[in-house]
């Protein structure tokens, strides 16, 4: 049951899906579970909605994890976030305020086919598992497939490359489903957050060009407050800034699409570490990594309740 679920180990897809059903069953007043579509291989794309049903048109925060299959700390964080939000609702006034005033849409595993494949076959698989008939290689980089400056610098047109942008924008059913959901709820979703690994960075638009976003001051201070909150846990430093200059230029990314789609705060977290373990972050580090990231996300969410 949910009480015995171990949040400090990595779980295969089927265990995460069972966990989602159990969370939904045991928290009827704070949780809704629904599917926003199907993956290429026909798996449901589940989203958990967290928040008190206080009024219909609450502001919302979207968090997705597991866009890139091999980045296992992502889904571990999404599960951790849900556990913390529900367990602290009663005794933590700041979390209760967030859950009363906001809805959180949590997608624990965005790239379900790739994640399953990384457990069963290739631990370092990154992309989706879609197949184009005339090519022998599989998969599209789900963070190069969004309809924003699609397949420009930092993405590849070659299907065998790890940054393959796909045959056309939103070709991937997973990307299309999330884009459709966020378009539908664009008036309420005020923050888009995508959890990746590894580099210890907090990135915001633009990825596809060296330019400053119009609401730079608000986003920059939100990022600065978030990395300070993160640092307060264990003294781990995260760099922050526009993705194009802080990491590298890439086109067709989800944060650029979310921002272009009207979501004023779009962030990509690159969680621990900086390369000692890389994608193989030990289970012993799930707790501190998720604890510090929790503080950062709460800071971002709290900022949405204030005027900037």
């Amino acid at each position, binding site marked *: 049951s949910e009480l015995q679920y171990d949040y400090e180990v*990595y779980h295969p897809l089927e265990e995460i899906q069972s966990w989602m059903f159990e969370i939904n069953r045991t928290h009827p007043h704070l949780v809704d579970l629904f599917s926003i579509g199907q993956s290429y291989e026909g798996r449901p794309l589940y989203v958990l909605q967290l928040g008190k049903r206080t009024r219909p048109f609450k502001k919302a925060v979207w968090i997705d994890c597991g866009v890139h299959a091999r980045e296992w700390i992502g889904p571990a964080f999404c599960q951790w976030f849900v556990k913390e939000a529900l367990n602290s609702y009663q005794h933590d006034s700041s979390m209760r305020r967030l859950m009363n005033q906001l809805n959180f849409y949590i997608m624990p595993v965005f790239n379900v086919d790739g994640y399953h494949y990384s457990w069963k*076959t290739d*631990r370092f698989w*990154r992309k989706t598992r879609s197949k184009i008939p005339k090519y022998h290689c599989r998969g599209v980089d789900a963070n190069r497939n969004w309809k924003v400056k699609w397949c420009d610098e930092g993405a590849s047109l070659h299907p065998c490359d790890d940054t393959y942008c796909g045959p056309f924008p939103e070709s991937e059913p997973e990307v299309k489903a999330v884009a459709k959901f966020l378009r539908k709820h664009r008036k309420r979703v005020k923050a888009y957050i995508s959890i990746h690994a590894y*580099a210890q960075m907090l990135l915001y638009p633009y990825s596809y060009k060296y330019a400053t976003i119009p609401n730079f001051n608000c986003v920059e201070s939100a990022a600065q407050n978030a990395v300070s909150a993160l640092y307060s846990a264990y003294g781990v430093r995260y760099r922050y800034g526009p993705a194009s200059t802080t990491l590298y230029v890439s086109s067709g990314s989800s944060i650029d699409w979310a921002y272009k789609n009207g979501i004023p705060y779009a962030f990509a977290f690159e969680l621990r570490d900086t390369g000692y*373990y*890389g994608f193989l972050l030990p*289970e012993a580090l799930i707790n501190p990594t998720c604890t510090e990231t929790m503080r950062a996300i709460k800071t971002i969410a709290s900022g949405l309740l204030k005027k900037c």
Partner: protein
Amino acid sequence: YLYNNRYVGDQVFRIIPSSNTEVQAVKQLLQNLTVDLWQPNSASLIRDNSPADIHVGRNKTQWLRRHLHQAHIHYEVLISNLQTEIEKQTGYRSSRKRR
């Protein structure tokens, strides 16, 4: 073993090219080698004074070492046996299941 022990002997190299010349030399090497780039996500994004983390199959590690030495490019081995780290990351779980 997890993944049928397919990663035994694989290694992860970290290369931080110190100049554009070295960047070009690393890109050239990677053209002759099938590698799994951990970061950045493609060879075209490798740039000087930024780390490139490269997962190399066991039968190519010596080739890469030799060519990096010849090009006088500094590197370090982040992970010397990938299979061991994979087992460590979740290995205890499968042994627990075995128990």
